[in-house]
């Protein structure tokens, strides 16, 4: 449906740029969930459905962010990927093997190629940073010399070489998560699962941890599946996003598409916190669904890709002689592609020609309401 909208008759020359970003040839999926459901037995013995018919796939070397409110099922979803939970129905395929069907010993072996990091880091308090990183290697049976070499590399990778003999209690939250990341990478996994890894960190530390994850994705070609309740995390690192609500994936796609053209109510509510989306309170309070004669129509314009920087309002004034009143707006970049949002108020009688005009430029428009 998105495609039809984009390559319609009023598509501008810019649409070709958009097409490049669509994956016309599907890449090989590293993680694939097919019709996965998970039902737990609740406290009173009643079944609780955590996941309901989830289909999801993460391409090799890609970053997929799953966003949802707490209790939406995202923790269960990520735990299915490394077999910490077994699906009640459906298949979970990671790097070609069906995780749920593996016997316990084979599964343990497979988990070495699936690293995981956690919201609360889950480091051993009795071990130093270096010893924590060494633990998965000890478990895998590497000899001491090999472990020492690998731990040194990992400490360098996460920038903690000088903290190798510090205990977790002597490290900051960000440093602990770096140790967690190094530990997850110790056995050279192909997949990294991130369970709300930045939720316990302040914004600045969050940025540095996400930058580290992005670097790991780019340099090591690691496939990353992350779950979060913060849109900011998704926008800064993920290429694809899936929105989960009450155990179902309600929307998924390219981060740019989902951010600029959210379809589902839950997605919109997550995006509401993003700058430029929310209406100023004094407008929101007066908004009515019906047109008021002599009043103003409130229109949200979404600028995507090549149009984000077009001087549309100037043209609107010049060509249609419509004076738009800017109420809110932002210009941003998602996944390296510019996008913008503008909320304008225009005279009621100019509404329909304005919408036609904006559509000619391939812009997304939405009439939010009317004010007197």
């Amino acid at each position, binding site marked *: 449906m998105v495609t039809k909208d984009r390559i319609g008759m009023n598509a501008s020359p810019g649409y070709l740029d958009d097409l490049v970003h669509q994956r016309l040839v599907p890449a090989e999926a590293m993680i694939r969930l097919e019709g996965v459901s998970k039902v737990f037995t609740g406290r009173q013995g009643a079944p609780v459905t955590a996941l309901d018919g989830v289909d999801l796939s993460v391409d090799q070397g890609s970053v997929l962010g799953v966003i949802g409110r707490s209790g939406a099922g995202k923790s269960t979803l990520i735990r299915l990927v490394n077999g910490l939970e077994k699906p009640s129905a459906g298949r979970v395929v990671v790097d070609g093997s069906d995780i749920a069907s593996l016997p316990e010993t084979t599964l*343990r072996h497979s*988990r*070495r190629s699936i690293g*995981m990091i956690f919201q609360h880091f889950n480091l051993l308090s009795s071990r130093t940073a270096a010893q924590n990183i060494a*633990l998965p290697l000890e478990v895998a049976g590497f000899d001491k010399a090999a472990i020492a070499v690998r731990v040194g590399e990992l400490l360098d990778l996460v920038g903690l070489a000088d903290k190798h003999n510090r205990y977790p*209690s002597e490290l900051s939250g960000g440093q602990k998560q770096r140790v967690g990341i190094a530990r997850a990478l110790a056995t050279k996994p192909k997949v990294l*699962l991130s369970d709300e890894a930045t939720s316990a960190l302040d914004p600045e530390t969050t940025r540095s941890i996400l930058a580290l994850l992005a670097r790991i994705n780019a340099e090591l070609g690691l496939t990353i599946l992350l779950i979060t309740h913060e849109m900011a995390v998704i926008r800064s690192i993920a290429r694809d996003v899936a929105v989960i609500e009450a155990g179902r994936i309600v929307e998924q796609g390219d981060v740019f598409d989902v951010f600029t053209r959210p379809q589902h109510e839950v997605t919109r509510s997550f995006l509401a916190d993003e700058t430029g989306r929310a209406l100023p309170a004094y407008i929101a309070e007066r908004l009515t669904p019906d047109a008021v004669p002599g009043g103003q129509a409130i229109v949200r314009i979404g600028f995507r890709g090549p149009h984000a920087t077009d001087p549309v309002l100037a043209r609107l004034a010049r060509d249609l002689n419509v004076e738009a009143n800017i109420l809110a707006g932002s210009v941003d970049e998602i996944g390296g592609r510019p996008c913008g949002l503008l909320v304008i108020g225009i005279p009621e009688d100019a509404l329909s020609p304005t919408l036609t005009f904006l559509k000619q430029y391939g812009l997304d428009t939405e009439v939010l309401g009317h004010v007197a």
Partner: protein
Amino acid sequence: MSPEMIRLIVGATGETLMMVAIAAGLGTLFGLPLGVFLATSGKGELFAAPWANRVLGIVVNAARSTPFIILVVAIIPFTRLIAGTSIGTNAAIVPLTVAATPFIARLIEGAIREVDQGLIEAARAFGASPLQIVLKVLIPEALPAIVLGLTLAVVSLVGFSAMVGAVGGGGLGDLGIRYGYQRFMPEMMAAVVVVLIVLVQAIQSLGDRLSRHLNKRVRQA
């Protein structure tokens, strides 16, 4: 105080220390695996065996609810079987160990249950087996608490060891009862009590210090 009395006290202290040390050592040897099993065999846990867990739990509770002095008498046939006699310091070690094992098991179970579940999850996620989780995660992480628990167990054993004196077990309790009480030598009774107080203080502060040294959870000054 006569040199003879001092000789008696030193000898009895040695006996008490030996009884306590051996009973604590054996109690830990049996209590540690038992405690680990109790802590990890509940429903949905690492070595899930809910029935065995429940049965062992009942046995441990039964042993712990039997008053020690009754336990000593009740297991005399067992004591004879193991030690060849039911009188003396060696024989006393048997009931002391039997009393210490379930006590230590419960303390270790408690210490292990205090370990953050997230660590078990992390260890499973990087491919550790249940046994590796116990040996490399649970026991090392619980060690400060285990040391405190064992300290408590040793202090209790000092008290129990004084009780076995009443049934001919030797040691400080025996000395206190025979000389202090039956021969009415208050200075001997006082000396025994003082030695016991010093002993317990020493054990407790040693255990506290060791536990603090092992505990890396808090920043050390």
